[in-house]
């Protein structure tokens, strides 16, 4: 029998409801594993062991009373540390919010608690979700559980590493340019970025407000659908929350792919893509053909402009959103202040790390007088072209299949000194955020170096259900999602940078 910490969320739930195991036993199994492995993996920045056990006991007693339990009954969940949790620190892995304790709960956190989940703690990220490796965290880099000398991806690297190392049964991440899908790919787990507006952003610390979306990071596709069922809802507290009705995302999961048309965007298979990743994704396309799907080549002609467009729009929105960190309302305040301008500029200089400063500066420049038209307006126009590319493509195909990341996990320090090289590692994930469409990354192979490879599926706006259905069919026909890092990989590598 497998250990309790190895179980997927839906397995945990059914075992608890069948009274084969208590919520407390499951939670304690995970907490024990966290205390053993978190010092090596560093997936969590905060672990709430006491709160989690108390919560699990409360769930057990309500089960004993015969209460009808929620969809996430007793499932231990990790929450990315840019999602507000009432009374539990929410740092965004930034010095500026090191001592911040939110006075309110994010809507998604309310939703998972209403569904009877157990929150284990908060996971590490690149500061303010700006990065692709967690190396920008002020509290240290998360290690990839498959090879601890490598990055786990980012920015939701803590959540993805927690799932890969069995330190949580499910996790929440956020995705502005690939921050759920890229770490999911690099850690060999499932990561879903829903359609923009599908999940409330209330209580998600804002980075790029027209791009940010919360989503599940899980051990399988069914879990992603189960968690999306709970968090997808219209929320009057988020004016960009979509009023469209939410289907049951797990009810329609099936394995027959007859009549499904899958497009391979040719621009996603070009220069810079590693051969190992390409052959794994092409093998997945062949598998879909076996399952009855039709595979066609399509084109997304503006793909090469994605990174440039994104780094204008995301940084413009970020510099505005991050102006709230002023050393007055909350967060770090400098000791060296003689007037209000010094209070602002020194508090921010001391509180923000280099990547956050770089992006604030870039966004400030793009929005400043004399440059607005050349940068921000131009990027917003190109963004409309991306949306047009996708709208046209989805008239022809149901979903698109492509790589999630050009390479498997890279070494710690490899791209740390070259911001542009780091930005280019998001080339396949950014377009979905610019267009607002859903995307999912799931495991599709292992590289010769023993590192997981992820593939990405994208669907049209509010086609999250169809996306999950196509992902599920592949998962059921393969066993890539069952692979886990070898136990001896889970140790500290002396060669780590």
């Amino acid at each position, binding site marked *: 029998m497998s250990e309790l910490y190895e179980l997927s969320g839906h397995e945990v739930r059914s075992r608890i409801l069948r009274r084969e195991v208590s919520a407390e036993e499951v939670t304690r199994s995970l907490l024990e594993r966290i205390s053993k492995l978190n010092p090596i993996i560093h997936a969590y920045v905060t672990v709430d062991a006491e709160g989690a056990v108390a919560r699990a006991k409360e769930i057990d007693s309500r089960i004993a009373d015969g209460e009808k339990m929620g969809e996430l009954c007793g499932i231990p969940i990790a929450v990315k540390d840019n999602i507000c949790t009432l009374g539990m620190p929410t740092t965004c892995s930034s010095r500026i919010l090191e*001592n*911040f*304790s939110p*006075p*309110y709960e994010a809507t998604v956190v309310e939703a998972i608690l209403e569904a009877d989940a157990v929150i284990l703690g908060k996971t590490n990220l690149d500061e303010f979700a700006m990065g692709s490796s967690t190396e920008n965290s002020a509290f240290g880099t998360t290690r990839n559980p498959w090879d601890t000398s490598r990055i786990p991806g980012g920015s939701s690297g803590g959540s993805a590493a927690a799932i890969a190392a069995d330190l949580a049964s499910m996790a929440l991440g956020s995705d502005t340019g690939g921050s759920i899908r890229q770490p999911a790919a690099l850690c060999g787990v499932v990561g879903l970025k829903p359609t*923009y*507006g599908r999940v409330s952003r209330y209580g998600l610390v804002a980075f790029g407000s*027209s791009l940010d979306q919360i989503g599940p990071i899980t051990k399988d596709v069914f879990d992603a659908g189960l968690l999306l069922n709970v968090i997808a809802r219209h929320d009057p507290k988020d*004016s*960009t929350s*979509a009023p469209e009705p939410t289907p049951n995302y797990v009810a329609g999961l099936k394995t027959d792919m007859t009549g499904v048309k899958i497009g391979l965007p040719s621009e996603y298979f070009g220069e810079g893509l590693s051969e190992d990743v390409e052959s794994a994704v092409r093998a997945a396309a062949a598998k879909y053909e076996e399952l009855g799907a039709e595979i066609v080549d399509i084109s997304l002609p*503006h793909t*090469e*402009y994605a*990174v*440039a*467009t994104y*780094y*204008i729009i995301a940084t413009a929105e970020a510099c505005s959103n991050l*102006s709230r960190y002023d*050393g*007055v*309302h*909350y*967060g*770090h*305040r400098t000791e060296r*202040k003689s*007037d*209000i301008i010094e*209070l602002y*500029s*020194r508090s*921010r*200089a001391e509180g*923000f790390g280099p990547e956050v*400063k*770089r992006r*604030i*500066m*870039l966004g*400030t*420049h793009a929005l*400043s007088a004399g440059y607005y038209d050349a*940068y921000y*307006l*131009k*990027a*917003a*126009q*190109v*963004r*409309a*072209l991306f949306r047009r590319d996708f709208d046209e493509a989805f008239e022809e195909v149901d979903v698109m299949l492509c790589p999630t990341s050009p390479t498997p996990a890279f070494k710690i320090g490899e791209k740390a000194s070259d*911001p*542009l090289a780091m*930005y280019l590692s998001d080339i396949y994930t950014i377009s979905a955020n*610019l*267009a*607002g469409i859903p995307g999912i990354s799931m495991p599709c192979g292992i590289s010769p170096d023993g590192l997981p490879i992820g593939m990405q599926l994208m669907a049209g706006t509010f086609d999250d259900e169809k996306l999950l259905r196509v992902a599920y069919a592949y998962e059921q026909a393969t066993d890539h999602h069952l692979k886990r890092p070898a136990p001896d990989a889970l140790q500290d590598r002396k060669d780590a940078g």
Partner: protein
Amino acid sequence: MKISTEMVEYIAHLARIELSEDDTETFRIQLEAILDYIDKLNQLDTTGVEPMVHTLDLRNVFRADEVRPSLPPGASLANAPEHTEDSYKVPAVID
């Protein structure tokens, strides 16, 4: 695009981030490289393309103007570095 030291200082001032001399030079080099890369957008003719600032088909979202419960002052002030019973404290703004 060429980025001068003065431009970096001006952007840092607008962004209210104090930079050391070393930071200024590092950012100057990095911003120049990133902006050079971004210049590739100018290869695209976007004449007449309506800019897209938002992906949903939502316009103004209104709600009834009714009083609802909100955070009490104590909870709002709890994270402030310096505050009194009912206000945030800042250095003098006007002489």
